[in-house]
């Protein structure tokens, strides 16, 4: 086999992120470098959690996508905070409640897709409206406060290193192993490439996709739970930023929207890219319109320049 010396597509996110980090640090003084990076890691971790879930869904076949991520995130945060009532002792039940909300939401998404034969983009959008309404009714008139223990946990430092990003990196590793070395992971990628072929290869396609959607919901819920601790409460619009971002990090991270191919590490690169880019543009004090413009140009440049394995 000839292995050409070229960079894998998912590395580009990291490279661009690195470049932005260097530029930002050079501009604002080298002593800011550490803080800039740790900020990007901390916020990037949330994008990665959400993105990893989205990755499973996107990989499960062309057209599969979950637009309900932001509202599941918010709803799970509200439910868990309501369960916890500010008490540290209730942390575990709160977490479980959040995850349960995510899993049920994922299952609901999948059911709508299968039972009503809707394209996922529409089915998950419709559910997201419903989930949002549920959150409105669960105390939408206030920002609900998390227990102190949760906030401490999300902000925990181990010898100067933040704990959360490390934990999320472990999650990424687990996702990689799941994709490569577990039966479900392989079946997911097979299903994503060709549903009829997967069916005839003895794969229970429906079950594989159901699990993908449930994992996506669960990941969004986990992110909501942690974000409520990290930013001091559950607010109705806490998830809004994660709609486009969850999709963008997945695709920029090297996962194919045509399905059947997924990359978990790449999500980190893309998430760091997004965070460091906004830091860089803020630091340079660039006007809002130009900021949007540059963001768009950078996204397109990265996808356009990355060499892609030719499909079909």
């Amino acid at each position, binding site marked *: 086999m000839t292995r050409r010396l070229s960079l894998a597509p998912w590395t580009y996110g990291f490279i661009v992120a690195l470049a932005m980090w260097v530029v930002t640090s050079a501009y604002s003084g080298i002593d800011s470098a550490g803080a800039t990076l740790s900020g990007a890691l901390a916020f990037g971790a949330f994008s990665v959690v959400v993105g990893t879930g989205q990755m499973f869904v996107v990989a499960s076949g062309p057209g599969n996508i979950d637009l309900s991520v932001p509202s599941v995130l918010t709803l799970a945060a509200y439910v868990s905070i309501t369960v916890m009532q500010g008490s540290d002792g209730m942390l575990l039940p709160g977490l479980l409640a959040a995850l349960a909300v995510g899993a049920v939401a994922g299952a609901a998404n999948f059911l709508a897709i299968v039972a009503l034969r809707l394209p996922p983009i529409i089915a998950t959008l419709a559910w997201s409206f419903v989930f949002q309404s549920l959150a409105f009714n669960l105390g939408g008139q206030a920002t609900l406060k998390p227990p102190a223990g949760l906030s401490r946990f999300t902000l925990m430092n181990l010898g100067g290193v933040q704990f959360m990003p490390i934990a999320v990196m472990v999650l990424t590793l687990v996702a990689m192993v799941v994709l490569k070395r577990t039966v479900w992971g392989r079946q997911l*990628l097979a299903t994503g490439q*060709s549903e009829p*072929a997967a069916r005839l290869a003895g794969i229970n396609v429906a079950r594989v996709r159901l699990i993908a959607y449930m994992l996506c919901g669960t990941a969004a819920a986990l992110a909501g739970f942690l974000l409520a601790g990290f930013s001091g409460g559950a607010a109705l619009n806490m998830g809004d930023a994660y709609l486009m971002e969850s999709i963008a990090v997945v695709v920029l991270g090297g996962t194919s929207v045509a399905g059947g191919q997924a990359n978990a590490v790449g999500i980190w690169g893309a998430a760091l890219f997004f965070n460091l880019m906004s830091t860089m543009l803020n630091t340079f004090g660039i006007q809002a319109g130009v900021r949007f413009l540059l963001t768009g140009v950078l996204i397109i440049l990265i996808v356009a320049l990355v060499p892609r394995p030719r499909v079909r």
Partner: protein
Amino acid sequence: MMNDPTSPKRDAAETVNADGLLIEVRDVRKHYDAVHALGGVDFHLKPGEVVGLVGHNGAGKSTLMNVLAGTIERSSGSFRLGGREIGAWSAASAQQAGLRCIFQELSLCANLTSAENTRIVHRSLRGLGWRRRARQVIGPVLDEIFPGHGIDLDRKVADLPIGERQMVEIARAFTQTSIKLRAVILDEPTSALGHEATEQLLAHIRRAAGRGIACILITHRLNEILAVCDRTVVMVDGKVVAERPTAGLSRAALVELMGSIERPRERTAGKVASVQAPVIRHAGRDTTDLTIDVGKGEVIGFAGLDGHGQRERLRAMFYASRRQREALPGAYVAGDRGSEGVFSLWSIADNLTIRSLNALTRGGMISGAAARKLAETWSNRLNVKAPSIDTPILSLSGGNQQKVLFARALSSDAEVIFLDDPMRGVDVGTKQEVYRLIRAEAENGRAFVWYTTELEELTNCERIYVFREGRAVTRLEGEAIETGRILQASFGGDHV
């Protein structure tokens, strides 16, 4: 963008050159990185000539035809059309020159109707009333080639069974509007056709040749070559190794030229054993639909005209076997490998092992080493022609892809293997091996349910069911399995 035919080009191939050659290529090469698909091929075609092209899977036949049709750019070599040297050759220029190709994989737009698909290849079908004219163009040709086809031209191709799609594609290639039709390349056109339709097509090829339309026919069914071709070209490993007039050529000689040896056909099926308790007993839809019994170690055949419910029954049995109380491990080998078989992003190894993941799992994780070993063993056993098991499956020739699908089923724990016309596009040599393998596996106790469109293959079966109009209507066993009776059952006794 969509440039219309320009008149000077239209006459590009009007004059045939001094040797009377329509197309002539010399020393054509095509390589994909390290893979040499074509290693210096000379080939020519005269007007009104029917050339047979044979060779093992991966010999480079399709690649050569794609070069002629302008859909693959040659790496090097000369290309003369009607005596004129051609530099850049494209699909558009091939269309202009009246050169049509029926590709190995179907090239119809499934979201369009047959009439609309005709429009795609004829630029002159436009303006008011084009739809009616398109129907008038394709309809008579379909009627001429496949009398009584019963295809609704205004139905979406996606709603047609594969055999009818193939008919539409064939007929479309023989239609003619403003550009004179000069040559038609047929790359394994019969692999999805039933017996009758195949005969009809072969007859039409001769008729077309009589009208001066040259045809190139690629097929692994050598008797088709012997039946219609004037000249036969044999390819091995990207080169032309022999070129003979077909007259006087025998099947055995042809096989020998291809580098394999065909042993005399014998009845390979075992003795009809007293059927023990069947492992599968699949009831029909009603009383006229026979129950299908499959015993341990049996090879059961499904026969009948293509599209008469065999495939649906096979699938129903496959899914039912997995759903019954004690799930019976089953495996399915799809014949429509492009859309139902291969996982196109994966390597040979990944494609081969997907059905066996549970068996390869150690403590919740798939063992990479065990998976490679399994893939290595089986791709060797089936002689998959590829540099390594890490080769992407799509870079294999059609027949070799099919072997990988076979290997996927055979290497699994399946006790019953459902074969859905699995020999489509498999070369003669490989077929013989696969027949042997099936026999051996059957002796080890595996059962096979085998749907095939090739009558000869049914002699490998202990028992066959002949299908007509969606039902299994006749059951034949042992010595009773012979062509005449099968045809009689298929046509309901009227035709033979």
